[in-house]
C-alpha cells in the first residue's frame, strides 16, 4: 500500500490558481488585441510581442540572477503586465522605448517591491507613466490607423489630445466633439493606443472576467459612475469648455483602465467599500486632469495616485464581521 497523505483540513481546493486567473485576464484582453492588430497592422503586433517578451525575460532574469529565488514567470502575471503595457502604447513606439518601459514596469514597480503581490503600484501603469514623462514625443504622436493592409498613415491626434489642445488655446470644444462619432468610438475607429481602440472589444473581455468571477464590478462601476456624474455637472455648467459624459466614458484609457488596470488585485482595495472609494477617487482625479491639467489623459495618473491610498483604504474598510455589529 502506498503511503497515506495526511494534512489538516480542508482536503479539497477550488482548482483556481494564480496562473488560471492571469490566463483569464489574458483571454479577456484578446478581443481588444485582435481588433488592434487588425486595425493598426503588424506594427501593433510588434509592440505587443516586444512588450510581453521583455516583461517575461526581465522577470525571469531578476528572479534568477538578482533574487536567486525560484522563477515566478509561470504565474503569467508578467504576460498580463506586458500586454497591458503594450496596449497603452502607440503602435509606432520604437522597440527600445518599449523595453525601457518593461524595465521600469517589472524591474522597478514590481520586482523591487518583492514581486507579485508586494507591489504598491500597478506595474503596467507605472511603466506607461514612466515612458509618458520620459519620452513624450513617442508617446503622444499618434498616427491614424492604417489597418493591416491599409493605405498610408495619416498623422492625427486622439480625441482627448485634440480637446486638450483646443482648451489650452481657449477655443470652443463643441466642434471637435461633434466631429467624433460615438459609434465608431464604441466599436473601432478612433486614434490611440491598442487599449483605446475598441470599447466593445474591451467590454466583451470585461464581461468574460465578470462571468468567470475573476474580478468584481465595484471598482469599475464606481469609476464610471463618478466620471459620468461629475462630467455631467461640468458639462451642463459649460458645454463649450467641458466635454460630455459619454465622450469621457468612451475616450482614452477609461475603459481599459477601469476594467483591467484599476481592478488589478494587488493594487486595489480588498473590501467592496474600499473599492467604491478607490473608484470614486480614480474617476474624479481623471476628470480633473482631463479638464484642468496639461496632459490630455489622466487615467494612468489617477490610478497611480489612488494605488498609493490602497493600504490606507484596506486599513479603514473591513469586511462586516459575523456577530460583531
Amino acid at each position, binding site marked *: 500500500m502506498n503511503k497515506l*497523505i495526511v494534512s489538516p483540513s480542508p482536503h479539497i481546493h477550488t482548482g483556481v490558481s494564480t496562473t488560471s486567473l492571469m490566463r483569464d485576464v489574458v483571454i479577456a484582453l484578446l478581443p481588444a488585441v485582435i481588433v488592434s492588430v487588425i486595425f493598426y497592422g503588424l506594427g501593433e503586433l510588434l509592440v505587443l510581442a516586444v512588450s510581453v517578451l521583455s516583461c517575461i525575460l526581465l522577470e525571469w532574469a531578476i528572479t534568477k540572477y538578482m533574487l536567486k529565488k525560484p522563477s515566478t514567470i509561470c504565474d503569467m502575471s508578467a504576460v498580463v503586465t506586458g500586454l497591458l503595457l503594450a496596449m497603452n502604447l502607440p503602435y509606432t513606439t520604437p522597440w527600445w522605448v518599449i523595453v525601457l518601459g518593461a524595465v521600469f514596469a517589472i524591474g522597478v514597480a514590481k520586482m523591487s517591491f518583492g514581486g507579485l503581490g508586494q507591489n504598491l503600484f500597478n506595474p503596467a501603469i507605472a511603466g506607461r507613466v514612466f515612458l509618458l514623462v520620459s519620452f513624450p514625443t513617442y508617446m503622444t504622436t499618434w498616427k491614424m490607423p492604417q489597418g493591416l493592409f491599409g493605405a498610408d498613415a495619416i498623422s492625427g491626434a486622439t480625441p482627448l489630445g485634440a480637446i486638450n489642445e483646443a482648451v489650452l488655446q481657449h477655443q470652443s470644444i463643441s466642434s471637435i466633439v461633434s466631429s467624433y462619432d460615438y459609434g465608431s468610438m464604441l466599436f473601432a475607429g478612433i486614434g490611440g493606443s491598442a487599449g483605446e481602440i475598441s470599447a466593445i472589444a474591451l467590454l466583451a473581455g470585461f464581461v468574460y472576467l465578470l462571468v468567470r468571477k475573476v474580478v468584481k464590478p465595484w471598482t469599475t462601476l464606481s469609476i464610471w459612475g463618478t466620471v459620468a456624474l461629475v462630467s455631467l455637472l461640468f458639462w451642463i455648467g459649460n458645454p463649450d469648455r467641458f466635454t460630455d459624459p459619454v465622450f469621457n466614458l468612451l475616450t482614452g484609457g477609461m475603459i481599459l483602465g477601469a476594467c483591467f488596470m484599476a481592478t488589478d488585485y494587488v493594487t486595489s482595495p480588498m473590501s467592496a467599500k474600499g473599492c467604491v472609494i478607490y473608484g470614486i477617487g480614480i474617476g474624479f482625479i481623471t476628470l480633473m486632469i482631463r479638464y484642468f491639467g496639461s496632459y490630455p489623459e489622466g487615467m494612468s495618473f489617477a490610478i497611480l495616485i489612488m494605488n498609493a491610498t490602497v493600504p490606507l483604504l484596506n486599513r479603514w474598510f473591513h469586511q462586516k464581521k459575523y456577530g460583531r455589529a
Partner: protein
Amino acid sequence: MSQTIIWTIAVLTVVGLLLAVFLWFVAEKFKVVEDPRIDQVEGVLPGANCGGCGYAGCRAFAESAVKAGNLEQHYCSVGGNAVMKQIADILGIAAVEKTRQVAVLRCNGTCEVRPTANTYDGWASCNAEASLYTGETMCAFGCLGLGDCVASCKFGALSIDPQTGLPVVDQEKCTACGSCVKTCPKHLFELRNYGPKGMRMVVTCRNEDKGPAAKKACANACIGCGICAKTCTHDAIVVENNRAYIDYTKCKLCRECEALCPTGAIHGVNFPKPLDKEAVKQRVNERNRKAREAALAAKSESKEETA
C-alpha cells in the same frame, strides 16, 4: 541684492532661534525622568531582544532589573556571566554567576533509522503538524524536522542537517536563550550545562512507547531497558515512562552508560578520545562480579553470625 541676502539670513536666524526656544521648552515640559542606570544596563546587554530572559526585550529586562534592584530574577544567558558582572557593577550589587549552558537535542531519529509511514502535506511547521497528528513516522515523540526551532533561533545556532533531517546545535553560537526549548512541540530541546570542555552525556531519545514499539519505530530509540540506570555508579540516570534520562548535575562523564546502551541512544560529545566500548564493558562486568561476590560473602557472613 545684498539687502535681500541680509534679510534672508536675519529672518532665518530669528526663526531658527524661536524654534530652538520652543523646542527647548517642549523638551523641558515633557521630559520623562528616568533612572539613568536603565540606559547603562541596556547598553551592556547584547541587544538581541531574544526574549530568552523572559522579558519582552533587552530594554524591558533593563527596566525590570533596575527597578528590582537585585538580579535574582534576572539572568541574560546570551551575555553570560561577563555581562551580568557589568550589570551588577552598574547596580552596585554582587553578581549572580551561572554555569554556561547549551541547548541539546534529545532525538536521534535520523531519516535512515526511522522509516516514514505517511506523508505530511500541510503547512511546513512542526507546531502545525504536531497539533494535527503524531507525525510522519511511527515515533510519536521524535523530531518532525520542519525547523520551527531553526526559525525561532535568533543567533543562527540551529540548522537542519539535510542528511539526518534533524536540527544541529552550533554549541559556540548557542546562547541558551531557550527559544528552541519553548518552540519545539515535542519538547526535544533541553538546556544542559555546557560541561567541562564541552563534554556531556545525553540520552538522545524521548520515546515513551514500550521497548518493542519504540524499537520498531526507530532503531536509535531508547527502549527503557534500564541497563544504564543499573550501571551508573553516580545515581545520575533515571528510567521513567520507558525512557532514560541523565541528570547532568550528577553525571561524572564516565561513559559507562554509553558503552552499555544496546541501542546507542546515549551519546557523549566532545570527549577527546573515542569510546572503547569493549574495555568499558569488561570493566563494568568485573566490577559487577566483584560486587556480587562481596554481596555473597556478606550474606554468608551474616548467615554464619546468625547461626
